[in-house]
């Protein structure tokens, strides 16, 4: 027991300064921990940011892999290569990928990769992570690039299970490509679409490493602070594991709503 978890942070050096639970003492404090966490000035900002990340990631990260899968499913050549490409970013350690985005892609000067491309296309360049408005979209782009491979391959497997006769029949009835996607592809993959939507919501609500690395935590004008980052701040920088646990419980309650839908869907599948 001589290893103190806080030693490296240099905040706490003596045993009597340890938080109560480390001394084996617990006291009933009622709702104090919840009240303290609700009073945190970043509490509502963190929830707002987390929700807007979840919604943006759902718009981009949900539709894109589905259309990528539809496209890949039509090709008869180079499919192996394309599948490897789509999944490759998933295998990178997230820190590696995010440092790449932070230093090279989101460089706010015109030497940055994205700004160089925008400039070549005669579009206005952006300050990326330095601008509170662009912080969220920038994190969504990085996160989608890193994570979409898994969803794309799962959709692809689902698409391959759609009986060909359905497309045949739809085509005989005069349905064009878009109507075939709407009336055959989407209904046939409905279950997996709903399932992955739930999984993605649960995953994106835990947004943590993107703000930590891309935005150094809070970002410009608190535009990147997420709920998970607040848990981390309270638990491991403000010596407030109790408050962090309370926030974790709040997060659990919010996610339980989504998980309930998920459970109902999987139950229907069986």
């Amino acid at each position: 027991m001589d290893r103190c978890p806080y030693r490296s942070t240099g905040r706490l050096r003596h045993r009597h300064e340890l938080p109560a639970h480390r001394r084996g003492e617990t006291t009933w404090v009622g709702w104090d921990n919840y009240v303290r966490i609700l009073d945190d000035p970043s509490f509502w900002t963190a929830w707002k940011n987390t929700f807007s990340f979840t919604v943006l990631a759902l718009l981009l990260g949900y539709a894109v892999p589905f259309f990528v899968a539809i496209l890949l499913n039509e090709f008869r050549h180079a499919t192996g290569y394309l599948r490897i490409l789509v999944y490759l970013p998933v295998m990178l350690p997230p820190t590696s990928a995010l440092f790449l985005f932070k230093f090279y892609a989101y460089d706010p000067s015109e030497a940055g990769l994205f700004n160089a491309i925008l400039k070549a296309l005669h579009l206005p360049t952006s300050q990326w992570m330095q601008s509170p408005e662009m912080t969220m979209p920038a994190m969504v782009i990085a996160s989608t690039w890193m994570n979409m491979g898994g969803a794309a391959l799962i959709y692809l497997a689902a698409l391959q299970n759609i009986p060909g006769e359905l497309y045949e029949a739809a085509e005989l009835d005069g349905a064009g490509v878009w109507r075939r996607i709407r009336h055959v592809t989407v209904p046939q993959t409905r279950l997996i679409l709903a399932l992955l939507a739930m999984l993605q919501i649960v995953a994106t609500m835990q947004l943590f490493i993107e703000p930590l690395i891309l935005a150094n935590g809070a970002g410009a004008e608190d535009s990147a602070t997420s709920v998970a980052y607040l848990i981390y701040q309270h638990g491991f920088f403000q010596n407030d594991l109790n408050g962090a646990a309370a926030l974790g419980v709040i997060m659990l309650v919010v996610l339980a709503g989504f998980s309930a839908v998920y459970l109902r869907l999987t139950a229907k599948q069986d």
Partner: protein
Amino acid sequence: MAQDSGTRTLISRAQLRRGRGRAIYWALLAVVVIGFTLVFLGPLYWMVTGALKSGQEIAQTPPSLFPQDPQWQNYADAWNNLDLAKLLFNTFYYATGAVLFQLVLDTAAAYSLSKLRPIFGNVILGLMLATLMIPAMVLIVPQYVTVIDLPILHVSLLDSPFAIWLPLVANAFNIFLLKRFFDSIPEDLMAAALMDGATPLRTLWSIILPMSRPILGVVSIFAVTAVWKDFLWPKLVMPSPETRTVSVGIYAFAGGTPMNVVIAASVIAAIPTVILFLIFQRNIMSGLTTGSLKG
């Protein structure tokens, strides 16, 4: 899994063979192959070559496509200054241990739930699956409090590999994946082994495990990538510089290290998982779809 050339998809094959359809098909294929290469491989190229540029070259506008004067020193600096050999060894050590622990304990759990069927086995399975509903971020604090003062034993697992290995073993997803696979092995084989006087352990070792190689491979690969990609948990439980994983180590050094050296270190950190993927891509992709579609 492999594309059956006879399967009808969105667009009929006949349409693709005809003049106009064929032209559109090849044009679209070319666009997609080039586009995907740029989008998914492009950033990796930028990363590898960017780390070879000098500080001045990286700040120049417009950026150069090829490093004019490759600075191999950046990679050498990354390797030496960040002590990458040590960091990579640590990560490799944690990953290997995670694979071994998961193979032994998760296989045993799945085997008993699938074949030995203890009473309340389904209740236990249900409870295990319920843990999948709890997001990892919510568990961070209780898990940390458990690890710094292990119940009953009252030891701290900080800086000990067990802090990574033990929580990973409690992996309901892997146990469920293995159980589903074991369920598909016919009961007749179990009965035959029993007739020959084999103990349950012997049956597991000589009959079940040899038949389960593909799924064991999938579980192992997922265990390695999980350890390699994990960040927050190792950051919390491995506070000393000597025990850090490679991701945590690079993050810790990022503040006071030149940008190109950080990127060079990031490239080196990504090499093992990329190689693993290129070797085992078929197993990884099939495991991904069995886990989610049929699991």
